[in-house]
């Protein structure tokens, strides 16, 4: 059991000696190549209703590396949104901790630190019509964050920043006086992106940002997120339920099922060498726009009962090849290693 490793975790611990101001400012990586921006350490999240407690996430260990686009994929109820919301402190965690640049940001923290997180981590939400205030004009919506944190010198500086941002997302300054309902879904999502990006965040949590959009305009929102990420060297946690979408945008992909990461590896590798049966079922569900291929399609349905897990042989997340983690018990692990040894042939 002992060779279970935390994703990409190296044994070395970094030491947290920062100045009092800017606790969350970046410090150079302690170990070469290992530079997580956010780390979830043995995180547990549960919701209580009366005396009933429902555990949504348990033993979640995850590092999101600086500058990467990390795709988190799972179905409704898998806990993928909860993870994102726990990072920005919307959902409380009931065990473990979350660190940002090595500083603990979960549980009780100072007000100053809370403010810092709020500026450094921004969200993009799924439904752009629900997440924009219908009674505020676009100018107000985009500059709300600037106002809250006084991130501008004077009114003309603020306006300049807002106009600059609205152009960057492909809209025009005259749109600033309009209200959200005057825009199409794709445009509204771009306003949502502008509102986040104007804070110049280090990290973006994009929770299904394109699921509510038409396929024909999804691409422009994806392109936009990718452009911003490149330009500002941001880290992105991209949450989605559709593998075909994250494949295109992500560097690494984590597949989450029922509150647990079941497989995690580089995006290409996940498609080359999917090991966990749930990953395979997700891959089999991606529709291919080719009628002849689709007619041969066999949908793989994942049944969690198909694993023969016992108390003596409980599953854990193992590193089966460098950077490739799968949740398995010891017999499955042996099988997966064999599959990799044979180059993917089962």
């Amino acid at each position, binding site marked *: 059991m002992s060779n279970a490793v935390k994703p990409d975790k190296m044994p070395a611990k970094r030491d947290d000696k920062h100045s009092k101001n800017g606790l969350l400012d970046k410090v150079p990586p302690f170990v070469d190549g290992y530079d997580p921006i956010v780390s979830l350490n043995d995180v547990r999240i549960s919701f209580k209703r009366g005396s009933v407690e429902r555990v949504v996430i348990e033993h979640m260990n995850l590092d999101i590396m600086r500058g990467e686009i990390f795709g988190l994929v799972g*179905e*409704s*109820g898998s806990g993928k949104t909860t993870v994102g919301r726990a990072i920005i402190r919307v959902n409380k965690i009931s065990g473990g901790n979350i660190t940002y640049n090595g500083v603990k940001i979960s549980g009780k923290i100072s007000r100053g630190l809370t403010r810092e997180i709020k500026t450094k981590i921004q969200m993009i939400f799924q439904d752009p019509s629900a997440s924009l205030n219908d009674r505020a004009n676009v100018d107000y919506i985009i500059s709300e964050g600037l106002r809250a944190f006084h991130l501008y010198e004077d009114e003309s500086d603020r306006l300049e920043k807002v106009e600059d941002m609205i152009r960057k997302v492909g809209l025009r300054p005259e749109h600033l006086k309009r209200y959200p309902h005057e825009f*199409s*879904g*794709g*445009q509204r999502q771009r306003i949502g992106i502008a509102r986040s990006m104007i804070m110049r965040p280090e990290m973006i949590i994009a929770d299904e940002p394109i699921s509510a959009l*038409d*396929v*024909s*305009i*999804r*691409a*422009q929102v*994806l*392109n936009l997120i*990718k452009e911003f990420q490149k330009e500002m060297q941001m880290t992105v946690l991209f949450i989605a*339920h*559709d*593998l*075909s*979408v994250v*494949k*295109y945008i992500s560097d690494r992909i984590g597949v989450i099922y029922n509150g647990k990461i079941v497989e995690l590896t580089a*995006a*290409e590798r996940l*498609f080359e060498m*999917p090991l966990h049966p749930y990953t395979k*079922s*997700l*891959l*089999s*569900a*991606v*529709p*291919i*726009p*080719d*009628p*002849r*291929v*689709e*007619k*041969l*399609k*066999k*949908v793989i*349905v*994942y049944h969690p009962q198909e694993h023969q897990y016992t108390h003596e042989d409980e599953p854990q997340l193992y590193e089966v090849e460098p950077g490739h983690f799968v949740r398995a018990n010891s017999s499955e692990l042996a099988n997966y290693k064999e599959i990799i040894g044979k180059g993917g042939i089962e």
Partner: protein
Amino acid sequence: MEQKEREKILEVRDLSVGFVSHGKKVSVIRDVTIDVYQGETLAIVGESGSGKSVFTKTFTGMLDANGYISSGSIIFHGEDLAKKVKHSEWKGIRGKRIATIFQDPMTSLNPLLTIGYQIAEVIVLHHDVSMKEAKEEAVKLLEKVRIPDARNRMKDYPFQYSGGMRQRVVIAIALACRPEILICDEPTTALDVTVQSQILELIKELQREYKWTTIFITHDLGVVANVADRIAVMYGGQIVEYGTAEDIFYTPQHPYTWALLSSLPQLGMKNEPLTYIKGNPPSFVNEIVGDAFAIRNDYALRIDFLQDPPMFKISDTHYAKTWLLDPRAPKVEKPKIIQNLRERMRQAAIELKREVGDNHE
């Protein structure tokens, strides 16, 4: 092809639908003509605002109160559905012979009534049976749509079902009336991909058994490759291209269909930006002159801005409404992604470890 021998179940001729909005009349469906054949699956594909939902709502008389059919006819078994105005005239057709499944199953189900009651209610309404018999029938229907432990789950309320299961219940309600035509309005858009593929599979299987005709509405061309026999692409209240699934996926002719296909993320390549359709679908507030797609179209000719193109015939099954098909039009080079479409699709399939078959060229 075989469609010639097939019977037409629905003949739509020059159908136009208008809406009154802020005291102004706007035309939302503009002269649509199409036949639907008995037993086929016809997919209607288009962006939000293309008119695809409004178009199919006319088949069941469910236009919003400010909408009206301004001209044209919809012939269903010799009757013109476009002439029906009164609620009572729709009895026996809406929900019974032509049923609809909507995107969000929660809005179709009553949250305060048990699943079992809601199915049985429909059976009692349309067939002459007692509530008790209807409930027995409802259990059978729930089993048909593969709800595990159906008898016990009859007593559950909609909120106790997951999204995919709720959509199965809605399908069961539609089944209760043995409809001749089942309209599926984005039935899987709100669902996870894994659930989506299961629901599509279920609809296909039940169709084989009950032999109904499916009209499938979606904005995602990727989804319909699996289910559609024929595809009609809608834009700006018109059908701009239609043909068999193979016509549309392998030899698309309309620049709008090209754009829809090239924006599919499944066909995107890492390291190159995804293609997308610039601009927005036309608003109907101002009258559309010429081809509605012209302003967003990289391949627009001058005539596109002046005159609406006619429907050009490409083959017995394949038609498209673009001036590019006029013999006088200049020869244009299709976008790269469309030129290599088959290759890209094949690659996407191989990447996902799908069987590609040998009938590929």
